[in-house]
């Protein structure tokens, strides 16, 4: 019945989707191009701002610790970046916390130049940096700088749903100075209220944290499930430490950089973009998008890291390899993200 009604509505708006008309009236109502309207801005520190977004009714539920793609229109062009969700899954508004990177145009605009009322597009929540269900009893969080954002999402969720878990948990957070600490007041209040042990370290004074310093601070680290997020150097050191002295599976890390394709890279091949009528030779491991662009195709693209789904095209023939997972996709008609797929032999994409 509902499907029938949808078909009729679609026929009434053909060749558009009913959703296109809704999205024209209010972008937030679109489900094919989900968006949120900034309803409040909360400055956290000099370079970090939390944006509170009112989204459409069908916003997918995120898991604490996940990120979303955020699309913003700068001088007419959509740019995509990913940010950790800092609100709880049950919150009415979606919160993303943005730190302006030095020289970063998009993050700078989002943190400082996005007034209330701005419409931002949103990708689906993603990421494996999440708490297990049921949550483990003994937790350790190690964060540095803006790496606190995904963990803040977890802490808020635990404080609201399982405060007793926080009583035995430890959070070690590093930032340059006290003034740079994002969520400082809230973290302290949360620690006071739940019994969470909060260790703040200011690296301008105390220097960068090392794994053995961490082990001294938290002697029972090896018996805890650990979640770490921060600069790549810190995460590498921690991973190394857990490898050598503990259980590597007990350490969960989140890196704020595009995942490096490590999986099987595909064999490469000739790729044909059927709509653009452009053909290109794609090297093994080379994303189809980059091969097409090198040959002069103007392809839809956004985050270029597999998050926003802007670049999706249907597979007409052949097979592709997902550069993140190494999985092979060869079902004709299957949507393929061209930015994170490489050719596994000759392939045709309907773009």
């Amino acid at each position, binding site marked *: 019945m509902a499907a029938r009604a949808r078909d009729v509505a679609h*026929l009434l708006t053909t060749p558009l989707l009913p959703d296109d008309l809704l999205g*024209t009236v209010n972008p937030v109502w679109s489900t094919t*191009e989900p968006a949120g309207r900034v309803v409040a801005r909360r400055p956290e520190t000099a370079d970090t701002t939390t944006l509170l977004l009112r989204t459409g009714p069908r916003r997918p539920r995120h898991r604490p610790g996940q990120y979303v793609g955020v699309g913003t*229109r700068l001088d*007419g*062009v959509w740019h995509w970046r990913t940010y950790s969700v800092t609100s709880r899954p049950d919150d009415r508004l979606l919160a993303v916390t943005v730190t302006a990177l030095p020289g970063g145009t998009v993050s700078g605009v989002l943190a400082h130049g996005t007034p209330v009322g701005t419409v931002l597009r949103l990708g689906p929540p993603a990421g494996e940096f999440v708490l297990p269900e049921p949550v483990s009893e003994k937790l350790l969080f190690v964060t540095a700088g803006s790496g606190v954002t995904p963990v803040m999402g977890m802490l808020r969720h635990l404080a609201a749903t399982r405060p007793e878990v926080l009583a035995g948990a430890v959070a070690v957070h590093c930032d340059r100075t006290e003034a740079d600490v994002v969520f400082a007041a809230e973290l302290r209040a949360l620690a006071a209220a739940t019994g969470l042990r909060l260790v703040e370290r200011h690296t301008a004074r105390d220097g960068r944290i090392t794994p053995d310093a961490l082990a001294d601070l938290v002697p029972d680290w090896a018996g805890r499930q650990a979640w770490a997020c921060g600069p790549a150097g810190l995460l590498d050191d921690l991973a190394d430490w857990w490898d050598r002295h503990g259980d590597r599976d007990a350490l969960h890390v989140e890196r704020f950089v595009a995942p490096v394709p490590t999986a099987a890279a595909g064999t490469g091949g000739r790729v044909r973009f059927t709509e653009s009528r452009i053909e290109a030779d794609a090297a093994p491991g080379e994303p189809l998008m980059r091969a097409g662009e090198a040959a002069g195709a*103007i392809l*839809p*693209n956004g985050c270029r890291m597999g998050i926003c789904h802007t670049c999706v*095209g249907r597979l007409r023939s052949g097979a592709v390899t997902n550069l993140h997972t190494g999985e092979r996709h060869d079902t004709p008609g299957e949507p393929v993200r061209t930015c994170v797929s490489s050719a596994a032999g000759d392939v045709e994409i309907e773009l």
Partner: protein
Amino acid sequence: MATLTADHLTDEQVDALGAELDALRAEVVASRGERDARYIHKVIATQRALEVTARGLLLFAKFPPAWIAGTTALSLAKILENMELGHNIMHGQWDWMRDPKIHSTTWEWDHACASEGWKKSHNFEHHTYTNVLGKDRDLGYSIMRISADQEWHPAHLLQPVYNQLLAAFFEWGVAFYDLEFDLVKDGTKSKEAFKADAMRLWRKARRQLAKDFILYPAMSGPKGFLASAAASLVANTVRNFWAHAVIFCGHFPEGVETFPEEQLEGETRGQWYVRQMMGSANLSGGPLFHTMTGNLSHQIEHHIFPDIPSNRYVEIAPRVREICKRYGLNYTTGPLTKQYGTVLRKISRYALPRRAEQRAALAHRTRSIAALPVRSEIPETPQPVRLAG
């Protein structure tokens, strides 16, 4: 004979002209931004508002005032959708915005012809081989003789009549022409490919027909059904006449040249630009007129830069015109009524066979826009009805 009006240019001059136009294009591309994005979003919002208003009014199609207002709004909505939105978005003019909803690979237009096939025949074949005899199928749409260099056939005697039929059913003309039945006949297109294209047309067209002639009329109630269906028919037909007039004025008026196939051999970028400019003609008018023609009133600018945002054509037109003047090249333009008049006269004239030398003489005379033949030189043929406004 072909590049007659450009024959006075040396190869170096043609190269310099090409470099000037390349620089102009680069300047536009580098300055695309928020202002342009706002323009296309405004046109999209206006078009959708017009269409929703039209469909709302036509629910009361049996009341004449609602019918008139609804049919007018629907005609305008269809014209805007096909010309300023569909045609231009499918050219990739807005791809730079990286908006998957306003992108040449995803846009489907309110037209019987599916975007995919149209993009191939139009963007590729017509825009690459513009006005090259035997290569540009849009030159007379393979049924009309609009140049002395085309072979005459007795069927052409009727072309003033079937041109009017084509205008009335232009949407279907474009859709069926896109199936390339002529290419199946001469064996360059396989029957399978033809069948696949025909199926695609049927899938698209039946939805268009169902929407315009069954679903919306049904919503107008039993008493309003016929009035509502008539409104759809009128709106589609108005759009057809308008699109036909604008498009025919783009390449067929007096002063526009055609080229032999040899022209393509080793054609340089500069020569390509010259052919595009000599093979196209503009229409003069105000801002609203330009928008309603999908800015195809700037056919010359569109043909040299098919994929820059349409709102920029009017801005660069004075500079393109200045360049043409400096290089001594024709820049054909005029009001719609005048230009369409010359198109209709041409269609009548070339309906008749003529002897080769006469043909050559006439072709020579008509190539110079300044020395447009006066009426007395035009053969006695019934004058077709003028439609333009």
